[in-house]
């Protein structure tokens, strides 16, 4: 090798600067260290690689969300508007018929092109004829599977093609365009409209659910932190051996700056290999991301393209960080030709700045408490900074906690004494080994808690009375309410049907300005009793509800016998006519009770026969359904019934049991992710454990020689790991719970401790320790063989 000659001053050939040569020499040491050297480099590389992949993924998320947002806007059909354009060659009738299937949203559109130049949404080349539909690939797969049986009944259209990627916002999106006829009469200014172009006429900048943003941020911080800690630990692998090697280099004439550069070169080799691995991980993860769905959000791999400056930043920052950590670890070390000297006893760990970190983190998060409910924005920098400070607080506090606690531990049995004394002598090493686990567990506990809290919040509506009804179906005016009620009553799993139509009564014609408007509710006696205490009731009766809402004095002023009131025609569509109603003499006063939606109604209650004939189509029909949850897929059956009545019927589920299923998959994912991070850290723990054992080989075999039981030594190894880990897990639980509580307060959810996740995460942490100890036992036993004495 010509590099050999590089040691000699050779004036003839142009020479690389000294530091390049030193770095190169270090890199060569890293890869020529035999099997162990390779394992060390590989572990460093895997750690760095995971960090790089996560960083790249994080860098790609904003662009992915932006891409989704752009596509969403490009296909927007703007259906709101009081003015309706005339039918023309370039117009399209479109109806929003979104539905849900087993907790997943299905985007549905009925389309009726009115001319040859009717606008086409992205991803669609031609509209299907009436009765046919274009579906997204995910929906196609779902309809073809057994899973989709009930959905097939709901969508009685032939699949005639698929929607292209440009018309979808995610690989898992369920979406269809179905051809329809006669949509014009249904134009209502909200769900059915005539449009001449797609795309939001008022493009907005991206606005994502702040809770979602929070989750994404926290997930990445929580996953990145232990990886960072792991990298920091990984570049220290084999430190002792390296120090000895560096000392040998000093002996043959390397100066201390050269040795530092050589050490940096070794770390750099692992980091650069890590970059390569990281790029691989990222590409693999990007493909995998195409098949994953989080919070109902899926993306196409192509979305996940980080901005080039960010990629460059990652590529430079990660190896630089690895080198810096190495140099940082060497700062208290003087490498002398005859060995390594640690400059004196490290100063006693000071507490105050360590204690400062968690409160500082909390202070950064505090201003955002409650913002999740107000649809407010979370300041991303504050969130990231706050979470990081809290987690860094763990790594900063842990060495102090371990040192302090261990110094106070009383010696007990021999195994315990050996472990405690060992920890007292080098608690820093022990704490460093556990740091990664502690950070991962703290973060995971906080996240699990956040998910659990958000989940229970999402699945528990705040005012609906779920004991009386679990679903509500809003009916379009084309569907007669009694028919609908009968259909629902026949649907399996429906216990009780409460049919109530609602509208508005005004004291003046609705064509002009209104003076006093009161609610109008129409329903059978049984249904009306759901919202008012009625002394007696027969079909044809009319009641005036008063005193329901304190602010409502309209009923008392407007509902006077003999007065003419006007029924708001707008629920009946554009062409509906205004009906007129005279308050009868026999109107009875009634007291409101909470209706199934949890509200106190006011205004006029009518039995069906009391409703003027012209007003039948100008009230919103709605049915409230009490369901038998034990009937499988009862909600899907109700939705099918609703769809059978009219595609415009809009079923809403109150008991959102399906939300939890959505979160379960995330929590499982988080669980797996945390377990993987912990396993990785466990691997590094094992490596350093073995390294330590090897260093103590002679001592161990001499202890065996004097008759120490193997059990005693094994136990002492276990204690030695278990004590710092227990402390780490304890600290991690406290910080994790605090962080979780703050995050929940930020989203406005109720703070509840999710003990299951605390136990699971600490359990995994503990299991990692146990596995590491178990795996290090065979080498320990081997090292304890008396052969260890045979070296002099």
């Amino acid at each position, binding site marked *: 090798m010509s590099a050999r000659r590089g040691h000699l001053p050779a004036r003839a050939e142009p020479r690389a600067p000294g530091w390049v040569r030193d770095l190169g020499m270090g890199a060569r040491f890293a890869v020529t260290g035999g099997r162990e050297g390779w394992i060390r480099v590989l572990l460093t590389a895997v750690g760095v690689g995971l960090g790089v992949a996560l960083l790249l993924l994080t860098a790609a998320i904003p662009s992915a969300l932006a891409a989704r947002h752009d596509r969403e806007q490009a296909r927007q059909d703007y259906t709101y508007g009081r003015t309706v354009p005339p039918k023309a060659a370039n117009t399209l009738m479109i109806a929003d018929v979104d539905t849900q299937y087993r907790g997943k949203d299905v985007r549905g559109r009925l389309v009726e092109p009115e001319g040859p130049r009717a606008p086409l949404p992205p991803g669609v080349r031609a509209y299907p004829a009436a009765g046919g539909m274009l579906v997204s690939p995910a929906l196609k797969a779902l309809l073809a599977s057994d899973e989709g049986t009930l959905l097939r009944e709901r969508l009685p259209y032939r699949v005639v093609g698929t929607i292209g990627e440009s018309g979808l916002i995610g690989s898992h999106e369920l979406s269809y365009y179905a051809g329809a006829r006669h949509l014009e009469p249904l134009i209502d200014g909200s769900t059915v409209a005539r449009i001449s172009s797609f795309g939001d006429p008022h493009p907005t900048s991206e606005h994502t659910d702040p809770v979602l943003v929070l989750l994404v941020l926290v997930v990445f911080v929580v996953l990145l932190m232990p990886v960072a800690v792991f990298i920091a630990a990984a570049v220290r692998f084999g430190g002792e051996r390296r120090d000895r090697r560096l000392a040998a280099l000093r002996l043959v004439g390397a100066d201390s700056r050269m040795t530092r550069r050589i050490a940096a070169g070794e770390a750099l080799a692992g980091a650069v290999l890590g970059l390569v691995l990281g790029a691989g991980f990222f590409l693999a993860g990007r493909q995998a991301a195409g098949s994953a769905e989080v919070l109902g959000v899926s993306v196409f791999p192509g979305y996940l393209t980080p901005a080039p400056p960010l990629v460059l930043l990652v590529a430079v920052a990660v190896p630089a960080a690895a080198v810096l950590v190495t140099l940082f670890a060497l700062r208290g070390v003087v490498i002398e030709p005859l060995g390594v000297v640690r400059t004196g006893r490290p100063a006693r760990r000071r507490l105050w700045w360590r204690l400062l970190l968690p409160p500082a983190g909390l202070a950064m998060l505090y201003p955002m408490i409650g913002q999740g409910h107000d649809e407010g924005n979370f300041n991303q920098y504050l969130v990231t900074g706050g979470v990081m400070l809290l987690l860094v607080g763990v790594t900063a506090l842990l060495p102090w906690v371990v040192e302090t606690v261990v110094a106070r531990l009383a010696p007990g049995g021999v195994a315990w004494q050996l472990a405690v*004394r060992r920890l007292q002598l080098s608690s820093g090493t022990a704490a460093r080994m556990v740091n990664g686990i502690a950070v991962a567990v703290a973060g995971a506990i906080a996240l699990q808690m956040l998910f659990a809290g958000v989940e229970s919040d999402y699945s528990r509506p705040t005012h609906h009375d779920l004991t009386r009804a679990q679903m509500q179906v809003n009916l379009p005016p084309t569907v007669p309410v009694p028919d609908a009620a009968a259909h629902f009553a026949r649907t399996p799993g429906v216990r009780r049907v409460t049919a109530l139509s609602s509208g508005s009564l005004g004291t003046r014609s609705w064509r002009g300005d209104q003076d006093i408007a009161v609610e109008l509710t129409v329903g059978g006696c049984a249904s009306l009793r759901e919202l008012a205490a009625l002394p007696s009731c027969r079909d044809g009766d009319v009641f005036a509800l008063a005193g329901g809402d304190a602010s409502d004095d309209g009923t008392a002023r407007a509902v006077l016998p003999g007065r003419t009131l006007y029924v708001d025609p707008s629920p009946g569509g554009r062409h509906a006519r205004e009906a007129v109603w005279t308050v009868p003499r026999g109107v009875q006063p009634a007291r409101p009770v909470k209706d199934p939606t949890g509200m106190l109604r006011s205004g006029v209650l009518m039995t069906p026969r009391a409703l003027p004939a012209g007003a039948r189509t100008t009230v919103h029909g709605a049915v409230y359904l009490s369901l038998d949850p034990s009937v499988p897929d009862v909600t899907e059956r109700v939705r099918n019934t609703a769809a059978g009545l009219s595609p415009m019927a809009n079923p809403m589920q109150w008991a959102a049991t399906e939300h939890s299923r959505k979160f379960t998959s995330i929590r499982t994912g988080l669980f797996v992710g945390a377990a993987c991070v912990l396993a990785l850290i466990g691997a590094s723990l094992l490596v350093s454990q073995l390294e330590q054992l090897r260093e103590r080989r002679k001592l161990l075999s001499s202890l*065996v*020689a*004097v008759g120490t039981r193997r059990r005693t030594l094994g136990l002492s190894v276990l204690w030695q790991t278990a004590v710092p880990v227990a402390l780490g897990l304890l600290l991690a639980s406290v910080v994790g719970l605090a962080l979780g509580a703050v995050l929940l307060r930020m989203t406005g959810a109720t703070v509840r401790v999710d003990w299951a996740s605390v136990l699971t995460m600490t359990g995994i942490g503990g299991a990692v320790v146990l596995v590491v100890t178990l795996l290090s036992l065979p080498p320990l036993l081997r090292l304890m063989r008396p052969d260890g*004495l045979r070296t002099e």
Partner: protein
Amino acid sequence: MTATAPPPGSLLAAADLRKVYGPTTALDGAAFSLHPGEIVAVMGPSGSGKSTLLHCLAGIVTPDSGTVTYDGRELSAMTDAGRSALRRSEFGFVFQFGRLVPELTCVENVALPLRLNGTSRREAERAALSWMERLEVADLGRKRPGEVSGGQGQRIAVARALATRPRVLFADEPTGALDSLNGERVMELLTEAARSAGAAVVLVTHEARVAAYSDREVVVRDGRSRDMERLV
């Protein structure tokens, strides 16, 4: 050589020991015997098999063939646990570099074998301290092995070896890492303490001036031992 019965009156005896480590033959028919209270030096050039002989005698290493008899008991017939227990209670050990547990204090190091035998901590440390007094290192009790000199460390190691009042003390080059003045002091204290405690000593050394503290010597050469007493 076929003599397998231990010499009469011997406390520890070995006959026809053979031990091979990979390509190297460490012992090739070595014999040994030790009487109660006797100090025997095992001498020989490095690589001759001295240490292996000591390891076999102490039951740390099992010979490939041959017998080691301690107090009428055949070591190879005992279980590993049994041999460990024997080492804990009947034997004491001093190694070349002390081999003190670096994280324990000196007094805890000396108390360690007692504690391994089940003595309570307080009692073990009291006994340890009295042994340290005899070896003139009582003032180092609270220090850690890293904070004492080599000679002091060896004296602590001797105290540790004698703390359990063993019947046999095995010393493997106990002065190997010391200068002659410190080495002699350690040897004086070691032999005095062993004699007053009635412990027999197997002293492996390549130094004649250390061997001069013994009652007799056995020379190991090329894996074979020669008992000088019988030769003369």
